[in-house]
């Protein structure tokens, strides 16, 4: 690891250590924050007992379903919109303001329509993730070099094989960036919806634990979410960087 990496690790370790110390010495009330070591042991115990496994599986299942729908539909819409420049021009301002609107204000509307089930949560995940995927697809298709279309024509390739064998690989790094963002946006939307109101799921369990003053369970599941979000985002980030590098080499 580089020097910067070690310093970063040290900064995080010192922060966690300081929190531990502050909790142990009573500087922070045990009823407010429990020491990080207790959070970790509570998490391990909870996972081993299997009490929360259903909820964990449910939440991550919803995230996966929402992200897959958003990526597939977002890609399809992106391709369709890219094919008709006039429609794209009309939709551009909509995309620019889409994320300015706090989308969760429509979650209760979704509940009113679909009832209190997994459906509104999936929809919120899709709604939050699909537009980054559309934008990434448009960006990717914009960046396909003109020369590749000519290469396809020289080799007498059909439209379909040109798209599949030349354009798709050329746009792939941008599409992957879209997937990365879709995962993180979908995850945020699903967790937040579950927090606000949901029949079950991790967000619901954490908010119930908060209401019951069950701090070990609450902090254990918070820790789980923080770990999962960080690890998933780091893995996607590393892949993203690698694709971007390859794209840079490919251009030479």
């Amino acid at each position: 690891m580089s020097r910067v990496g070690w310093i970063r690790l040290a900064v995080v370790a010192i922060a966690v250590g300081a929190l531990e110390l502050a909790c142990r010495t009573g500087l922070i009330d045990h009823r407010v924050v429990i020491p990080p070591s207790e959070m970790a042991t509570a998490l391990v115990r909870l996972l081993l007992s299997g009490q929360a496994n259903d909820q964990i599986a449910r939440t991550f299942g919803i995230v996966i379903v929402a992200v897959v729908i958003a990526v597939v539909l977002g890609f399809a819409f992106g391709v369709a919109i890219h094919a008709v420049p006039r429609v794209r021009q009309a939709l551009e301002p909509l995309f620019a303001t889409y994320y300015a609107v706090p989308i969760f204000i429509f979650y209760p509307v979704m509940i009113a329509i679909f009832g209190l089930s997994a459906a509104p949560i999936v929809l919120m995940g899709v709604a939050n993730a699909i537009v980054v995927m559309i934008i990434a697809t448009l960006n990717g298709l914009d960046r396909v070099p003109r020369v590749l279309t000519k290469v396809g024509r020289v080799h007498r390739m059909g439209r379909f094989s040109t798209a599949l064998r030349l354009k798709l690989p050329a746009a792939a790094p941008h599409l992957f960036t879209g997937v990365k963002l879709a995962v993180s946006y979908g995850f945020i939307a699903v967790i937040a919806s579950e927090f606000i109101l949901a029949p079950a799921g991790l967000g619901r369990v954490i908010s119930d634990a908060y209401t019951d003053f069950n701090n070990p369970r609450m902090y254990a599941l918070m820790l789980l979410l923080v770990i999962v979000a960080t690890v998933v985002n780091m893995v996607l980030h590393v892949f993203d960087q690698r694709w971007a590098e390859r794209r840079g080499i490919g251009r030479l």
Partner: protein
Amino acid sequence: MNSRVVDTVVITAVILLAWQGLHLIVGETALPGPVPTLAYLVKFVPTARFAENAWATFLAFFYALMLSYALGLLLGLWMGAHRLSGAVGEPILISLYTLPKITLYPVILLIFGLTLPGRVTFGAMHGVLPVALMTMAAIRNIPPVYLRAARTLHLSPWQTVATVLTPATLPEVLSGLRIGLTLTLLGVLLAEMFASKQGMGYLIINAMQLLQTEEMLAVAIMLFIFAVAANALLLWLEHRLHRRA
């Protein structure tokens, strides 16, 4: 310009038609149509109840915004000017940025209770990260020749900040401020929706529990208009600065 007006009209019409269509499919109780909702909105907005809750949200939003701008600009300035701090801190800030921060809201509640400072803190938690990250990027992207020119002209540090650094970074910093505004509003509303006895977020959740779908939609539309208008204003400023640069 003219075609943009046409586009906006067409998009608005499509949304309204889709709303009406969905209303016909799912029925009156689940989703009232656009006409009764807008009629309700016109009646509801002048009431004292709306004014009180809108003011509560605005207050929390304003304090949270000031907090996230102040902290974000300071943090971004420090991480942009000091290379090592930037290299160490950037990935940490990025992973915090992608974290669903609502997860941490119960902690804020345990510390502050159901009070204004809690909602302000939670809103600022959302807004501070994009402001810091984009300010840092703006400072790093200053062409070195600008700084060399400042040195050649023997500008004092303050003159350098005022006449070179600020104009060079302003467009990018402004993008950060715009995203920060959006996310701060989101944070404040999430806080109100999760646990609060006042504010627009509370109004929406309360209306849902009482099955007053018209009120729920009316509040959502008002928030929608506010968010779009604030974003459009800052976007317009950004475009003007970019053109000048």
